[in-house]
């Protein structure tokens, strides 16, 4: 009987998730349809896409090529039309949401997965920047795919993880660091250094192709403008001081999650803790370029910690504390 009721509750959450997902997708595309002109940086990717299929040099060689390759690929079938791309790019964000839910459901249950996915994709930064022809949604998708294959028990998962890591790099260079963090933590959890070698065997050819392709096209490869490669110590407090505007009050619960013993018992959580800390440190260490949009890719890690804190609170035995107090 208990089993049946659990199944009903589980499928109920799946049902709620599907309904919410459909509503979210409609709102998402309603916003996309309002966009009459692409964002500044979007135009760089569009012009670069044009350059990739002609003899012209890339307009902006610091831009990762993946998005422009996708655009050029679509245009080769449809003819050059930015409106098609406007509607295509948000698909990656929506797909990332599905994969994140499916993955977390497997490890943490439907309710937990729903909480993390909802909190992540309702974040205005994730919503807004993913509606644009930019690399935010694309890299989020490949990063989530890296996580998905990284945790998979499939025989070829290490190779697939590597391929996804490479594609994360191709879609937005600095986000590869977050993918590498996920992979390294997984290797530590598995106590298997060979896992790292297998992953990087999958990633290296893609990274090499990307670097070589850009180099051959423009005669140089630079992953970012020179100012963006300057780092400072101690890191800036920009993101932590603006936590409320970036993540909302829920962010207060993220550090709380780390205070529960239960968090540290489950090694699965380590991935998200490291993902959050490394990404936050990386972006905070930049010498001058601080933007809430940089938080998009590790929003799932923040949401995970928030929901984990709630789960920990709900399962914590407060009577032990109250009894202790009474005993005194």
């Amino acid at each position, binding site marked *: 009987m208990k089993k049946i009721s659990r199944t009903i509750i589980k499928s109920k959450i799946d049902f709620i998730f599907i309904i919410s997902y459909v509503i979210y997708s409609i709102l998402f595309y309603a916003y996309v349809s309002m966009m009459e002109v692409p964002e500044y940086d979007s135009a760089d990717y569009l012009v670069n896409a044009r350059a990739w299929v002609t003899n012209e040099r890339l307009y902006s060689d610091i831009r990762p090529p993946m998005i422009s390759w996708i655009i050029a690929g679509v245009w080769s079938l449809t003819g050059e039309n930015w409106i098609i791309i406007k509607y295509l790019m948000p698909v990656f964000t929506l797909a990332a949401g599905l994969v994140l839910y499916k993955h977390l459901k497997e490890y943490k249950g439907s309710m937990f997965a729903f909480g993390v996915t909802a909190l992540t994709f309702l974040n205005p930064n994730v919503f807004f920047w993913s509606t644009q022809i930019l690399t935010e949604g694309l890299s989020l998708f490949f990063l989530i795919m890296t996580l998905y294959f990284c945790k998979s028990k499939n025989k070829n998962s290490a190779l697939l993880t590597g391929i996804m890591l490479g594609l994360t790099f191709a879609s937005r260079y600095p986000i590869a660091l977050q993918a590498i963090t996920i992979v390294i933590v997984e290797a530590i959890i598995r106590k298997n250094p060979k896992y790292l070698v297998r992953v990087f065997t999958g990633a290296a050819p893609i990274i090499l192709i990307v670097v070589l392709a850009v180099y051959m096209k423009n005669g140089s490869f630079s992953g970012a403008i020179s100012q963006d490669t300057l780092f400072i110590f101690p890191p800036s407090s920009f993101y932590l001081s603006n936590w409320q505007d970036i993540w909302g009050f829920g962010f207060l619960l993220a550090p709380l999650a780390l205070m529960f013993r239960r968090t540290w018992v489950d090694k699965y959580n380590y991935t998200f803790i490291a993902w959050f800390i490394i990404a936050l440190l990386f972006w905070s260490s930049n010498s001058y370029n601080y933007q809430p949009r940089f938080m998009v890719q590790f929003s799932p890690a923040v949401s995970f910690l928030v929901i984990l804190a709630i789960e920990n609170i709900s399962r*914590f035995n407060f009577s032990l504390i109250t009894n202790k107090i009474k005993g005194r």
Partner: protein
Amino acid sequence: MNFSLLFTLLAVVIVIAGQIQLIAINTSNFENEVKSVEGAFYFDKKFIPIMDEISAKVPQNETIVMSYNSTSLLDYFIKSKIEIPYGVDSLESLKNYMTERKLMWLLVYENVSHTKDLESLFNKNGLKQLDSVFQKIDEYSTETMSKFHLYKLKPQITT
């Protein structure tokens, strides 16, 4: 008393209230940001038709000299090549720059210039000075009240 339930509910309320507040704040922030950024045309229905009109007037194989082009937006939507007259600091040097390179077309983004020296030339009042050297082809206003002026170098200058 069930403290777990109480604290869980409190945490859930914090998260949901925070999220609602976050959405409310950011929705207005994004809108304001979009409006305040110079040349941001996200919701401007006139921008692309204007670029199409300019493209229709200027032959594709001819380069357009432009007062300001900080992004690739115009490079993407205007069919002709766009060039910024770096080093130019007056109407006279602009005329010489274009004559030497056999460039005929000038597109002015009103009140905006890549250099401070030309700001006075490309503002509303300064544009009148261009009439001595250029023939005004058309003037375009976007919904966000940005103005573009298309000029062609007068024929006698090139001879």
